[in-house]
């Protein structure tokens, strides 16, 4: 997994609540067996007209948001399905940071597997950040994962929370599976104990 680096970038504004995973990546794109190339499908039904041309009224198609790695959006982002294709699309498109008041649980977990940092702020702060972008599209925010802060030109700075374990893995681009397998002996011990105490779980069918 790519390590997350502190950086400064344009913040794109998508002022919508309850953006669900069917909007993030519609189901026809879930048939692919590869993990790559999903950026082309991000927000497909909003981003493109029926004839395939870009929908210029869709907020993320604004030239002022081109190159943004930070997405500022409304409540309950990522609700719905467990499809990891959603964060794959977001990361492949170019976002590595999402700021909202809340995220759906499964989506939140999936972000950390893909070097996307989901940041939770309160309503008042989200309103302030959205206002700042609306007043000055193309404005850049700075994200510092080490110190857990975000700074903005208008002074809407804030500190954010992130689990120490997740932070460490994101900063160092660590592979979850490798880390878990370092505890392989404990997994084996657990299984031996379970075989003894609950033998019916281990009978050959």
């Amino acid at each position, binding site marked *: 997994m790519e390590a997350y680096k502190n950086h400064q970038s344009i913040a794109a504004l998508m002022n919508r609540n309850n953006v669900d995973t*069917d909007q993030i990546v519609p*189901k026809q794109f879930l048939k692919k*067996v590869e993990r790559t190339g999903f950026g082309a499908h991000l927000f497909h039904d909003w981003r493109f007209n029926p004839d395939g041309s870009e929908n210029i009224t869709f907020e993320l198609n604004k030239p002022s948001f081109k190159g943004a790695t930070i997405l500022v959006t409304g409540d309950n982002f990522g609700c*719905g*399905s467990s499809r990891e294709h959603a964060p794959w699309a977001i990361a492949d498109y170019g976002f590595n940071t999402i700021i909202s008041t809340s995220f759906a649980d499964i989506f939140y*977990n999936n972000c950390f597997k893909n070097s996307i940092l989901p940041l939770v702020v309160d309503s008042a702060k989200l309103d302030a950040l959205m206002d700042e972008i609306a007043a000055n599209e193309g404005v850049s925010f700075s994200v510092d994962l080490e110190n857990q802060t975000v700074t903005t030109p208008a002074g809407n700075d804030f500190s954010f929370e992130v689990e120490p374990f997740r932070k460490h893995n994101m900063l160092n681009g660590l592979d*979850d*599976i490798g880390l*878990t397998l370092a505890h392989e002996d*404990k997994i084996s011990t657990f299984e031996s104990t379970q075989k003894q105490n609950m033998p019916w779980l281990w009978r050959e069918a």
Partner: protein
Amino acid sequence: MHNVNAKTLYEKIWEAHLVHHEPGQAPLLYVDRHLMHEVTSPQAFEGLKIANRPVRNPHSILATLDHCVPTKDRNKPIADPIAKKQVETMIANCETHGLSLYDMDNPNNGVIHIVVPEHGFVHPGMVTVCGDSHTATHGAFGALAFGIGTSEVEHVMATQTLPQEKSKSMLVRVDGALSEFCTAKDIALSVIGKIGTAGGNGHVIEFSGEAVRALSMEGRMTLCNMAIEAGARAGMIAPDQKTYDYLQGKEFAPKGADWEMALDYWKSLPSDEGAFFDTTVALQGNDIAPQVSWGTSPEQVAPVTSTVPTPESFSDNNKALACKSALNYMGLAGGTKITDIEIDYAFIGSCTNGRIEDFRSAAKVARGTTVAPGVTAIAVPGSYHVKVQAEEEGLDKIFLDAGWEWRDPGCSMCLAMNGDELKDGQRCASTSNRNFEGRQGKGGRTHLVSPAMAAAAAAAGKFVDISANNAS
């Protein structure tokens, strides 16, 4: 006031599955059962191959083909080349790793969350995962069952564990009794309508109360299935005699002396008296009427006896805006009676309502009726076993005589990945679980209902208050 030694069902399962927890790391939870389907697994198998890691416990895995499979003309090759490749990839991967797969030629084939209980694969107290949010279904057995992403699918295959943060607990009590016209689906929609699609965020829900206890195992599966739509990590119901009776004798249920040992363990699982829940929500079964979703979120629901709300009727500005946007997409005006909304399509099926009791309930209503002119109605059994059982009971004849199509199993129109889909602007009475924009087809308009309500709507060409009008 709670007893500090009292534990919830969730806590008991959590503690029994903790492999390792050290400061600075997420707790590592053991996974007993891993369910798989073709859509969320290919990249996980690819990851194993690249890292040269084997599947740790093949016997813990049960796989099926469900999302992309056609529900008719199954003797022909799959028309969509991308879907075809995805199905072939699953078959090859399962063969490589020696995994049990119910492919389309297998009499056990069907939707993952329907076939798994049919074979008694998930027991009370198990941690069960799948790359699918409706894994919550298996919480009906008193298991901790939840959806995961493809990276986590790979993680479970490689290590049989998952790093997991512990969730908060929510108790949803439904006391009283449901009317004869209401079902687990109506309880689910009422709960989501009450707490919202983010209401359960950060929580595992335990459903309890008289009306929940009164549900059959299939009803409990429908209810737990929808817990994810309330934003919860999982939905669980404590096991009881109904659970044990359902499991006994099934292929993967413990046998002989094992059964007695397992039973002892299962009986220790229900939440202790006085156990602490972070949040409690209470509903009365008697107050629940047949529900219909009117918007583009499962929380946008109303009793069939009422009207589509207006944006102004919402005091919360966000909900008002969401209403406005939904009404626009759904082509509905606030104030319209739900029973005046006409439909183009009816769909009975999905992991929510694709079981034999669902078809019995719908058939009771459909018997002797005819599908209204201009309406297409499809009945999609959740598995071949459901299909065979339904045919033994003559239910297929009831649907066919009424003008319904009787299909082979698959996820079908729930999420329209297999060619069963709505055209732009078409309106569907659907027994599935999500009504997001475009879910059943671009521009498609989904109304979530129970099977009996879908059958009644197909016959009338619009929604019907089945509690007032015995539509049979």
